[in-house]
């Protein structure tokens, strides 16, 4: 993709990140160095299948939970929250309790 294309700016766990148009949310989350979800036993997880089947890549987008990030393209202003955010950690520890 040419460098002249204007990047999209979105946020992953509150931190801004710029990506090229056509980038999937899963790629943006990996670029931000975040895990997509925390497993029942508390392990960080990231995409496995890349095609919408394994559900390891699910994140919260603009407040909507359980979205498969590998199947969704980034848009400017998107707020992405992953399991490794504070809220995600709280939820994971609540589920373990």
């Amino acid at each position: 993709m040419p460098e002249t294309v204007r990047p999209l700016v979105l946020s992953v766990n509150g931190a801004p990140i710029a990506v090229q148009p056509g980038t999937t949310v899963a790629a943006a989350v990996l670029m931000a160095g975040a895990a997509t979800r925390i497993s029942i036993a508390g392990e960080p997880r990231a995409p496995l299948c890349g095609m919408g089947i394994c559900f390891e890549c699910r994140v919260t987008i603009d407040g909507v939970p359980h979205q498969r990030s590998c199947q969704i393209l980034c848009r400017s202003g998107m707020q992405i929250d992953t399991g490794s955010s504070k809220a995600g950690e709280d939820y994971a520890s609540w589920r373990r309790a």
Partner: protein
Amino acid sequence: MREQFDIVVVGAGPAGIAAAVTAAEAGLRVAVVDDNSAPGGQIWRSGAHLPRAAQHWIARLQRSSVVPLHGRRVFDAPEPNLLCAEPSAFLSALNGSSLGANYDCAELRFTKLILATGARERFLPFPGWTLPNVMGAGALDALVRGGLPIARKRVVVAGTGPLLLAVAAHLARRGARIAAVCEQASFTQIVRFAARLLFEPQKLAQGAGYALAVRSARLRTGCWPVAAHGAGRLRAVTLRQGNNLWDIDCDYLACGFHLVPNIELPALLGCSPAGGFVAVNELLETSVPGIYCAGEPTGIGGVELALLEGEIAACAASGQTARAQNLARRRCRKIPFVRALERACALDPQLRSLPVDDTLVCRCEDVTYAALRARSNWREAKLHTRCGMGPCQGRICGAAAEFLFGWNADSVRPPVFPALVSSLASAGARDESLAAASSHNSKENR
């Protein structure tokens, strides 16, 4: 949305595109429904330079009268000749989907149905396989096509099947440092398969091109990862070839053990299986009259065969029987390649000893190998451990359990994908018991 079509095609990969285009060009009213936001399936996933055949078929689809329902997944078939499909993401409106802000469950009525649901990678559990940055070979390829920077990253590609070389070559062209390509099949298996390719000059040339692109990383046969290491993220992989074990540092492990067909929807519709695939006659009709199946779910055969099968199924479903029979003869000549590929990718029984007691097999519910080993079949494992009962519905651990323990999934029930409670309610309006059961489950899950 409620609409009636002559033919509904499920899946917009090569088989589904060929089927939809062929049926529409015969004057029928056709819809194609697919989970992804654009046509092409996984093999022609957008974001990179597509091969000429892909550009040709996708352009033909876009010129045709086919009604595209991208970004929708089929989750139920509550009565004959009816499918229910909900948006793949609530955000489809934000993504500029043709569906707009329409979050409702689509009811697609059909006279004939063509299932072109494709395949997924087979994953085998080994210590560390749940670490971030350990993923499928096709998965890393898809993520890179979806914008993940790969230049100067060290990648180990492992598993089995022709996908490994294709992925390694693509990543190398994008600037990745391919540290190793590990094929579990033996040298003899690979030589036999390569000899068979002499009958498929196009595929041989393609394979040679891939091999050339990754020539700096030697293809190792009879070699596989036995453990992935890292704290919170992959740092290194232990590889094994024969009696040799060694560690290799890497940023990504792209590991997939060939493909397994997506046969959940065919099974829900009552189509009989045949050796893990969907049973079809020579014109690709399944055991259910009026339902056809094309592409990988009838046998893993690659793009050219999938295109041909899509055409056959569409001709058969639209009453062009003579044309379908002609094409079916061409298909017969390609079946030996399917069998040869199956033999080349046959898994080494030693791979069954990859997981150790605390290795997770079911990633959704964190179920260990030790917990499963104590069970005697898939049903018992589900009831006692929740294996296969998370959101992937056993699509990942099911194929692993089949190889590790010889268990077969005994039944498929709706919804075949996790679905919104509102979608379930509208689909289940015909079936009060389903609606009641699902609203209970989904309240907890959402």
